[in-house]
């Protein structure tokens, strides 16, 4: 292990590859939060009255709430009056009609990020709704999807074009009273993605959003709403990056998924927000509320996440298993390095009969990183024959990191079978020795073992994402042990 300090230095010197800043003329609102700001955001977006009302209800409720402190994360207090709650690239407020109208500077940014936005990406079959700060810039493949009756657009567009769907489903999974950050989001959310798959339609391509926080001192409060109607299927990808900044930025998103009878939603995230520098300075606070509702029988919602970025990640993608025979899945790889902190996990709420859930969580801690799995498996009295299997494994690289497991299991029905297993260990010296004695370098051996450790989760990711995730992990961990 003698080589470790040197190689850790190499690891630490890894730069954040997505940390460039695009100088754009922006249209934003004054710093701070007040009822006027909420009204201004709504006015700028020319929202119908029901939206403004909803935002105001959320804002008034938010004023009565206090910031939660139960997670095992530490950060200086957040000044909610020091945030710009809305920031849009100027001139884009009307919305671009086609790719040609999009600011070339912006397109170059996406190109640097590797967002598949143009022709060549067509081959990859990815439709992207890119969110640049707060306004959705361009949405591809809309027509092709339109033919199938699939609605895939920015949230603002949905509010204008499909208000009846928004009104029916918005807040039906994550109500505006849900929690401090979700309520804040409900009051000030700027944009996000909206997706509706009509009955019986299998979405022919992976849908994707790419979020990016660009402007300084802005919070990103996007909101995603996905509805899979009876028998529909959709696979949705979400990727995130942000420029390098010394200050911490707040990201408080809300994602709501609704699966109706026999519908399936697969939601995958690769989160690579700026994690801060090697001394823990800067980085994104990623405080996100994600929840899916298997509202009717035989539906299925599956979350897959690869969390490698953010100074602090604090999120629990959850599934409410309301319909009989519904299935919830959660697959996660969370990596913390330097001074990153992650408190993540899931909630599986079993309400319907014969509901099933699987939780597979892999945590990797390196440097001074702290990684906590926090999960809840709840079996209500009504959930006859419910079944849960949970496995959380932690891998420790370095003697200054930490890994925690906090599973909550609440069972009110005797026919339920609930199993939880967790283990924590470091990479065994015998494993390394085995590889090295076969001519594999220590570095390759570590990456081999780490990818083996994460394999079960990566297998759940769509192809393009699996490759990206693997690369991200490689970049973050190269030479972290020797």
């Amino acid at each position, binding site marked *: 292990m003698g080589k470790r300090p040197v190689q850790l230095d190499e690891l630490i010197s890894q730069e954040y590859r997505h940390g460039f800043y695009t100088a754009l003329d922006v249209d934003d609102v004054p710093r701070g939060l007040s009822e006027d700001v909420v009204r201004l955001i709504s006015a700028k977006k020319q929202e119908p009255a029901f939206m403004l009302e909803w935002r105001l209800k959320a804002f008034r409720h938010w004023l009565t709430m206090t910031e939660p402190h*139960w997670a095992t994360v530490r950060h200086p207090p957040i000044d909610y009056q020091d945030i710009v709650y809305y920031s849009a690239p100027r001139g884009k407020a009307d919305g671009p009609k086609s790719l040609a109208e999009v600011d070339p500077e912006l397109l170059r940014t996406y190109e640097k990020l590797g967002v598949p936005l143009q022709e060549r990406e067509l081959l990859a079959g990815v439709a992207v709704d890119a969110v640049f700060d707060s306004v959705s810039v361009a949405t591809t493949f809309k027509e092709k999807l339109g033919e199938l009756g699939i609605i895939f657009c920015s949230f603002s567009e949905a509010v204008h074009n499909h208000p009846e769907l928004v009104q029916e489903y918005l807040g039906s999974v994550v109500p505006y009273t849900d929690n401090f950050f979700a309520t804040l989001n409900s009051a000030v959310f700027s944009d996000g993605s909206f997706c509706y798959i009509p009955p019986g339609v299998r979405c022919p391509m992976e849908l994707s959003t790419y979020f990016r926080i660009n402007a300084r001192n802005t919070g990103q409060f996007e909101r995603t709403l996905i509805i899979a109607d009876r028998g529909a299927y959709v696979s949705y990808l979400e990727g995130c990056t942000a420029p390098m900044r010394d200050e911490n930025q707040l990201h408080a998103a809300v994602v709501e998924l609704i699966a109706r009878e026999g519908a399936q939603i697969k939601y995958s995230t690769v989160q690579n927000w700026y994690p801060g520098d090697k001394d823990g300075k800067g980085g994104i606070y990623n405080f996100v509320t994600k929840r899916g509702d298997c509202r009717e029988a035989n539906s299925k919602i599956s979350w897959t996440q690869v969390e490698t970025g953010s100074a602090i990640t604090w999120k629990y993608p959850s599934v409410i298993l309301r319909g009989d025979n519904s299935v919830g899945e959660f697959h996660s790889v969370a990596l913390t390095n330097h001074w990153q902190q992650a408190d993540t996990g899931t909630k599986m709420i079993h309400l319907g009969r014969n509901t099933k859930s699987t939780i597979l969580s892999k945590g990797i801690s390196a440097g001074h990183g702290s990684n906590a799995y926090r999960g809840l498996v709840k*079996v209500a*009295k009504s959930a006859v024959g419910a079944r849960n299997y949970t496995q959380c494994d*932690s891998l*420790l*690289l*370095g*003697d*200054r*990191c*930490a*890994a*925690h*497991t*906090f*599973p*909550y*299991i*609440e*069972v*009110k*029905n*005797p*026919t*339920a*079978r*609930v*199993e*939880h*297993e*967790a*283990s*924590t*260990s*470091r990479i065994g010296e015998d494993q390394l020795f085995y590889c090295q004695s076969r001519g594999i370098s220590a570095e390759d051996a570590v990456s081999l073992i780490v990818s083996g450790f994460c394999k079960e989760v990566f297998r759940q990711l769509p192809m393009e994402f699996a490759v990206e995730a693997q690369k991200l992990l490689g970049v973050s961990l190269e030479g972290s042990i020797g």
Partner: protein
Amino acid sequence: MRIGPEEPCVPGFLSVYPSLAAQLPGAALPWLKRSRDEAFDRFAALGLPTTRDEDWKYTSVAAIARRVFRVEAAIEVSDEVRAVVLRHAIEGTQRMVFVDGHFVPGLSQPMPLRATLPEGARIGSLAQAVEAWADDVAPSFAAAGDAADGFTALNAAFWSDGAWIDLAAGVALEAPVHLLFVTTRSDGASFPRNLIRAGEGASATVIEHHVGPDGAGYLSDTVTRIVLGRGARIAHTKLQQEGRKAFHVADVAAEQGQDSAFLSHALAFGGQLSRAAIATRLGAEGCDAKLAGLYVGNGRQHMDHHTCIDHASPRGTSRELYKGVLDEAARAVFNGRVIVRPDAQRTDALQSNRNLLLSEEAEVDTKPQLEIWADDVKCAHGATVGQLDADQLHYLRARGIGERDARALLIRAFAADALAGIEHGPLRARLESLLPGALPEAV
């Protein structure tokens, strides 16, 4: 976490303390008086915990807070009590009996204890020890003012008596010490406090046994502190057989010296609401901790176990197995914490909690947790909740065993693991015989 002045504070205790304090053991000792006063102030500040405290999330003590308990400085010993003591006696042990929190030498056996003890072993009442051996006893009261919750603070302020076991280096007690705590008063509150100190290489088995009448809603709030010197070994068995309406809140904490071994069994059968916190700190290299538990409930019993294994030093090993069997509308809570501190390299920790639900109404809330700050460790935990396996039942039934017998067999087999480490034969036999009584409908 406190949230406001509306918290329940058990006004009865607050008003009785000033007058009672003068009658409690060691009232004339300034250091002890100070310790009690500090603890009392702490209790007044904390109040009783509420479900908003993470540690009490699933256990509401509102029923305790609502009642008024009598705290008295004197006791009576009736023939009925004698019968209770005989019924609960365990063969082959040295027995110390406490009635309503006070030591009763006349019921203890063999007496005088001292005659049968090896040199260097002191066993007696804590109330007497504070007077006679203040220097040895005082350090354990130092932290009374920092009690973690209202119940331990209450005990530190009101404790009336308890066992004092002090073993010099190398002393091995052959026979287990049986501490029998009998409650007789229907609305009484008793506050036993035990101190166990084992010097270098010393060893002992201590059985802490709580019993009381079924019809009475009394409170027993107990604290046990155990200190293990280098290479010492203490086996501590806590047997909770309180009355069916009783409230029982216990706090057992051990501090382990180098290469010491702590073996804990926590068994809960009685009480309407019971809570046991069992903690050990592996404070020096090479410690071993084994924690086992069994809780068996029916009716509307609520049983809560909180354990904490704190690996604060390198090369420690710990094994934990807690099992629960719940029938009717019983509810169990298990919270097992394993902490591995930054320097506790080479820690090896395993933890498991298994629960068997026998009825529609039973409920389990379990939370095993690992907090790991070191890298060269092997830690794993598991938790399961389920019902009797239909295949196993079918197997037995197919061999001509009636449904009832088959179920009983499986339940006993399930519970047996948790008792496996108990070394004293008569104690193990007693425990095995308790299961049918605890689950008359099922076993």
